[in-house]
């Protein structure tokens, strides 16, 4: 087992590896965390995800832009690929699954991929349909997988309109499904009018929402552990 001091050092390095989009460091220290007997969850949440939280702040402060964000995400994935097989299944009373994709007519998938990454980190089962996805495909995949969530993304005003049809179809088939829509042209107003359960106008907000979601998962995990300890 790594000492507390060593643990902190590894976590700090993982965090900085993500912030400084250093894939080599992310790889080396993720492996080191495992070799030295650290908990993989600890390394993911308190190392890699902490780094991504800081990236979110830098993005919001407009110190980082999309290229930096993509490079940070690459570093996070390098670490995640190493650590994830060693994650002990968390019993949080949540088993999330999500169908995600960019609607037909839209070939932009950067925002969608960022949201997908955060779902991956959170341990969700992610069914990624990719980009330019025919509208019926979302309903089909949801019915097949019984996912808790369906996330629709559109980058352009010209494709956003297709989301309404998917929302209507999904709600008609399964009133309990939660639907998130996202992308530059989407607004709170549109989300409400069309009956979506949540929305994100841009990558900043998508990232923020996803981080909030992860942060609340982290909190639940800590509470669960505190209960176990008492």
């Amino acid at each position, binding site marked *: 087992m790594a000492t507390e001091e060593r643990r902190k050092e590894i976590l700090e390095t993982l965090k900085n590896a993500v912030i400084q989009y250093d894939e080599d460091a992310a790889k080396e220290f993720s492996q080191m965390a495992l070799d030295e007997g650290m908990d993989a969850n600890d390394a993911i949440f308190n190392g890699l995800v902490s780094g991504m939280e800081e990236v979110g702040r830098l993005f919001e402060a*407009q110190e980082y*832009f999309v*290229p930096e964000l993509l490079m940070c995400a690459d570093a996070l994935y390098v670490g995640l690929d190493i650590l994830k097989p060693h994650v002990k299944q968390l019993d949080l009373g949540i088993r999330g699954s999500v169908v995600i994709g960019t609607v037909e007519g839209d*070939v932009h998938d950067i925002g969608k991929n960022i949201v997908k990454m955060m779902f991956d980190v959170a341990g969700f089962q992610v069914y990624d349909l990719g980009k*330019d996805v025919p509208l019926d495909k979302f309903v089909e995949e949801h019915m097949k997988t019984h996912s808790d969530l369906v996330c629709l993304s559109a980058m352009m005003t010209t494709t956003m309109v297709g989301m309404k049809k998917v929302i209507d179809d999904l709600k008609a088939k399964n009133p309990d499904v939660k639907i998130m829509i996202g992308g530059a042209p989407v607004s709170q*107003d549109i989300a409400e*009018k069309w009956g979506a359960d949540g929305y994100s106008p841009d990558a900043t907000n998508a990232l923020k929402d996803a981080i909030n979601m992860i942060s609340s998962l982290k909190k639940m995990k800590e509470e669960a552990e505190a209960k176990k300890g008492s």
Partner: protein
Amino acid sequence: MPDDAMTPRERVLKLFAGEKIDRPPCFSGMGNVTTEGLKKFGYKFAAVHSDAKMMADAAASTYKLFGFECGVVPFDLCVEAEALGCAVNVYSHVEDILYPTIKTKLVNSEDEMDIAIPSGLTERGRVPLMREAIGLMKKDIGGEVVAGAHVLGPFTLAGQVMELNTLLKLSFKKPDKVGKLLDKLADALIIIAKEYEKAGADYITVREMGATSDVLSPRVFKTLILPYLQKIFSKLELNTVLHICGKTNDIAVFMLDSGAKAISVDQKNDVAETRKKIGDSALLFGNYDPYNVLVSGTTDQVRETIKQCMNNGVSAVWPGCDIWPTVPPANFNAMMDEVKQYRR
């Protein structure tokens, strides 16, 4: 009526020439076909992209139906990438309105970025069709309104010919390599834009929305994007507009430095602030939301928004993006009426 003092065409040309006009024109440099216009001819949206006569008819119909003060082709953003060799999907199987997208990339990895611009570019893809459509549209309504066309900016075009993720990361990691590609794409865009000019376009809008500050830092915009926009605008003789959507307040001054005669911004730009920054004489077009206001707003909301744009100091009332085709006629009419009533 002061409106009779000049035709919409004269008003826009005077605006570009820096002469005094009675009110801001209400036009666009981007697509503005409406479902009303398509209905009039019985055209399907998916079909108008590949037929010069249909494209010209549809483009002219927005002026004829609503008095919108221009005609603009094309309606999609794929002409340039297609001419360079990318395949286009027009979604002919879809009944609803879907804009064409690029199906295949030209550059599949970092090693393939050293592309050659094909010879005879003006005879490739739909460039000849565009030439014909501009001519037909000009013959139809060119005496009354200006004829416009648009091309992408080099960076946005690069995002079509190669994977956008890769392009964005390389623009940070290897800007020299990206710069070389942008330089070539700028050459291609100059050739195509000049062809549109020859065909009779009165103005051309360069759409560089991929380089918005929602995506790239103002620093990268200035060092990596701006030089190639400057190259393009220095080579074109007709009236030019540079359009970038999203957060543009921090790059508005750079946009003017590009050498475009006018800059165009969308609803995310604080136009009053931009006007202060760039001074009274610079041409600033914008900036109503073409979907959330023009399509889904009430007529009162449309009037309020349009008045606000003019009070904030736009030189022309102009949408933040393509006009979404299902715009309700009452909203379109309210917009035109609000502009025509306005006096500085």
